[in-house]
């Protein structure tokens, strides 16, 4: 019997009913395992590519006994193949990864249920950090980034996803990518010193909210930014590649934003277009956290065994949200390390970890080789 549509299981209901960081790992692993087995069965029946990949990996049918047994798909597979577990007519949205024109982009197919669950999960997670009330919002980008419908980038999708948490939006950049200093002064005169939320991509925040703003601050900005941004919460994402080239890491980033702009609350989040919604937010202690919807494993890059906590390796991300495409278990191209489980000082349950950087090119090729992607494609 082949199920055509994925129904909300009792496990997923429980996962959604609880607060996002209140389930201790023992209980959560059990819930996730049950839900993941349902998803694996569903994708095996409804996505022939997924079934072929499992077969190519020598995975026999039946249930898995632990989360580490599920087949990991390399994130790059969504660039190579068009894969989904739903009918064409049920696709409501396609997400594309960012990437230069020469690079292939990931293509992620969403149906109404997956899309709604992603939004719900993201809201639950972010609310845990900033509360349910929508507050005035500064977007470190230009309005044209989200209104250009011909080129709706991952950056645009990220911004639009965050609009839910704000109101009275102010875009820091004009359409020509210069700072709107007058607009900023008007906004901060009105709302400054109240809680406000600032959202932007990590490199945009660094380049514009810090570098450009500081350059013009003394000559042009009449208001005291440090006073006005005292109660601001900054949420940012998108990766550190550009900043690491300038030797700026997360600690430097936070110190400078605090000293120069008075922004004390800064939360980075780790997430990817292949698993939208179940993002890993950085807590007050500086660690990314798994939520009810997600799990993280660290893999040894030589034999793919699971590394113990404290050891570096390649990050595997698990999310229960993808139903319309088989993206529940992904091998990323990032190196990370788990620092502990259920005992972070921030009081949130779950694993907490940091990301150290990208996997070297040779190792990425190693990942694909191990997974014999080319052969998998032949199967498909």
């Amino acid at each position, binding site marked *: 019997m082949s199920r055509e549509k994925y129904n909300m299981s009792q496990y997923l209901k429980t996962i959604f009913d609880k607060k996002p960081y209140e389930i201790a790992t023992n209980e959560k692993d059990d819930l996730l395992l049950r839900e993941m087995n349902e998803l694996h069965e569903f994708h095996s029946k409804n996505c022939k590519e997924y079934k072929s990949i499992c077969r190519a990996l020598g995975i026999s049918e039946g249930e898995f006994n632990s989360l580490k047994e599920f087949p990991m798909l390399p994130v790059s597979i969504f660039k190579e193949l068009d894969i989904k577990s739903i009918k064409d007519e049920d696709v409501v949205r396609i997400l594309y990864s960012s990437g230069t024109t020469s690079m292939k982009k990931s293509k992620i197919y969403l149906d109404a249920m997956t899309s709604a669950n992603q939004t719900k999960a993201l809201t639950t997670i972010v609310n845990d950090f900033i509360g349910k009330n929508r507050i005035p919002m500064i977007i470190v980008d230009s309005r044209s980034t989200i209104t250009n419908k011909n080129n709706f980038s991952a950056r645009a999708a990220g911004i*639009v996803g965050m609009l839910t948490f704000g109101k009275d939006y102010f875009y820091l950049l004009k359409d020509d990518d210069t700072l709107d200093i007058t607009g900023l002064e008007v906004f901060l005169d009105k709302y400054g010193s109240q809680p406000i939320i600032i959202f932007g991509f990590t490199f945009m925040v660094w380049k514009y909210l810090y570098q450009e703003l500081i350059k013009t601050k003394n000559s042009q900005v009449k208001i005291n930014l440090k006073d006005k941004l005292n109660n601001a919460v900054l949420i940012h994402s998108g990766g550190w590649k550009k900043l690491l080239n300038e030797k700026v890491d997360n600690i430097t980033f936070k110190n400078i934003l605090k000293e120069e702009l008075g922004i004390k609350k800064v939360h980075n989040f780790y997430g990817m277009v292949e698993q939208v919604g179940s993002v890993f937010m950085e807590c007050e202690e500086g660690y990314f956290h798994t939520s009810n919807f997600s799990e993280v494993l660290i893999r040894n890059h030589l034999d793919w065994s699971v590394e113990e906590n404290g050891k570096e390796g390649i990050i595997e991300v698990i999310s229960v949200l993808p139903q319309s495409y088989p993206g529940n278990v992904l091998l990323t191209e990032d190196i990370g390390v788990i620092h502990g489980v259920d005992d972070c000082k921030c009081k949130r349950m779950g694993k907490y970890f940091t990301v150290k950087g990208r996997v070297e090119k040779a190792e990425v090729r190693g990942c694909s080789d191990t997974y014999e992607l080319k052969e998998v494609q032949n199967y498909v």
Partner: protein
Amino acid sequence: MNNEDKLKEIFSSSLGIKLDDIKENLKYHSIPQWDSIAHMTLVAAIDDAFGTMLDTDDVINLSSFDKAKEILKKYGVDF
């Protein structure tokens, strides 16, 4: 103007659609005009017109014209 008509006017101007096209079962993402960006314009217009401050849960639950009425009733707006 009663609240029903007021809400219809808001949907019409925020989404850029005709009043006649607004039915009880008009759903989020069911027409190209009601996309994620227009959704936030709609939420802001509702807050302005009814003096409410919808929270993030309301924003994601506001998935149809009918649902908008249901949410506003919670804030004491009669239909």
